[in-house]
């Protein structure tokens, strides 16, 4: 379909006898947030690895705007338009917030083999990064090293770096992890606006946030998707209630 930005077709990946991802197909449409939920060990991280390119699938394909990207490396997928954030903040610790975002802008442009012009005199790179930091609310912290930012600020910097890639779609791996109630609320508002930039495939443990944000939800259990639908449909689905919602997390 023309509106499918990201499409997974029959993705499978086994580790020995364990089928971590088992024939998973899903789509991410323009303008939507598609949340992926599932109990611990359901295979969310493996699926994330298959989409981002960190892992190769045994079977199946990954498509981005109608282009088969299954064989591309992590870096090539990022240049093709996948903007991801990590479950555990993954930043360049010795670089300031500004330089982290500048590096993302540099990565998107694909011009890393330049040896002469100093990056700190590259006004386009600097002003672009400042604008993005301002948008996520980190403007005043631009010159602080990533290693000494607070946990919440590090989560925001993760998003800022994904944003700097101007991706065709976002892969956000538990962006709310470890945020307090206030931080989560702010991020929910922000993500709601972000989906206008590009659709979001969201892996998240915070059920309140998921049900507030997601246009569609897919439930992953033992590597398989057992249901996909709107928040209301997922809440009402008896299979989902039985294997997931009734067991450890409650609605």
């Amino acid at each position: 379909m023309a509106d499918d930005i990201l499409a997974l077709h029959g993705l499978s990946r086994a580790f020995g006898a364990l089928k971590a991802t088992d024939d998973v197909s899903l789509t991410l449409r323009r303008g939507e947030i598609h949340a992926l939920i599932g109990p611990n060990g359901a295979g969310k991280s493996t699926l994330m690895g298959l989409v981002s390119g960190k892992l190769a699938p045994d079977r199946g394909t990954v498509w981005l705007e109608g282009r088969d990207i299954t064989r591309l490396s992590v870096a090539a997928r990022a240049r093709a338009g996948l903007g991801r954030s990590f479950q555990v903040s993954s930043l360049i610790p010795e670089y300031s917030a500004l330089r982290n975002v500048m590096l993302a802008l540099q990565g998107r442009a694909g011009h890393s083999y330049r040896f002469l012009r100093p990056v700190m005199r590259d006004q386009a790179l600097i002003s672009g990064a400042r604008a993005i930091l301002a948008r996520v609310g980190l403007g005043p912290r631009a010159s602080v090293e990533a290693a000494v930012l607070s946990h919440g600020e590090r989560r925001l910097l993760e998003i800022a770096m994904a944003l700097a890639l101007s991706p065709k779609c976002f892969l956000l791996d538990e962006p709310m992890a470890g945020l307090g109630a206030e931080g989560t609320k702010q991020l929910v508002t922000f993500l709601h606006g972000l989906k206008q930039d590009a659709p979001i495939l969201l892996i998240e443990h915070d059920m309140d946030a998921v049900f507030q944000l997601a246009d569609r939800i897919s439930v992953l259990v033992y590597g398989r998707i057992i249901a996909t639908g709107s928040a209301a449909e997922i809440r009402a689905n008896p299979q989902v209630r039985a294997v997931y919602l009734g067991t450890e997390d409650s609605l």
Partner: protein
Amino acid sequence: MDSTRKEWLLNALIAGALFAVPLWAWLANEPFIITLATRIAILAIAAVGLNIALGLGGMVSFGHALYLGLGGYVAGIAAHHAFHGTEVLGLPGTNQMLPIWALAMVLSGLVAGVVGALSLRTSGIFFIMITLAFAQMGFFFALSWPAYGGEDGLPIFVRNQFPGLNTARPWDMFLLAYAVLMLCLLAFAGLRAARFGAALMAIRQNPDRAAALGISPFGIKLVGFVLSGMITGLAGAMMADLTRFVSPAMMAWTVSGELIVIIILGGVGRLFGPVAGAAILVGFEVFFGGLTEHWKLWLGLVLLGVVLFARGGLIGLLAGRVRHGG
């Protein structure tokens, strides 16, 4: 004073001292001191090369003696054929430094490309061991190749020439080494500040994040490794000319270790770390080497102290740590 300005001041001081001391020696007619300063400058060039791989890229090459030796043999073999008026691979020998340097850099770069392409698929201790293995291959090859002296080495009877200088004079040779060192430092500072350096330093800290931003760690590291080998190869050609002798000992694994020690003593990844480190190493060798043949024991203790208490080496101790702010 902020740490960046402090570091620039310190760098200027080191650069000034490395020029002023041999200048005084020249005026006072002390050629031994001039040659010592020349040796510091050339060792520093070799370490500037390694500093690209190790300091910026975090690639702990334990085999950079290979490039030093390759450069040395280019200079030795070219001079050997020029002296005897014979040909090598259909080419005449030469006693001109400029083409020798160019060839030394190209050859070192090619070999570093092969070594890097194979070893950069690994990391950590495996990377260290593979780079060491390649250097040992070079060492034993040179040892068993009788055409160019084998284990006896190859003397350079007349020092190679540079236009406008009389390289046989210690002061001229020093000026040449000093100028090349400054050019190499300029190149290091330039690529560190540019997008390439930003990518290379980011990959050292977090390769997964760099990849997720579209920056391929392998390609960037390989280019860094090749540039690193080229500069160390250049230093090798100059070192052979300074001592007018090249032998397999130049490729010994202890030499690779010495280059790492220079960088750790001076400051890993710091612009003038290699210069400070080379000065400390040669200084120790001369002053403590005159007092006791066990001077390496004292050097070892200093190294231990640096690793335990002053991770940033001399530059880090005096100028504080690096800031990538803005």
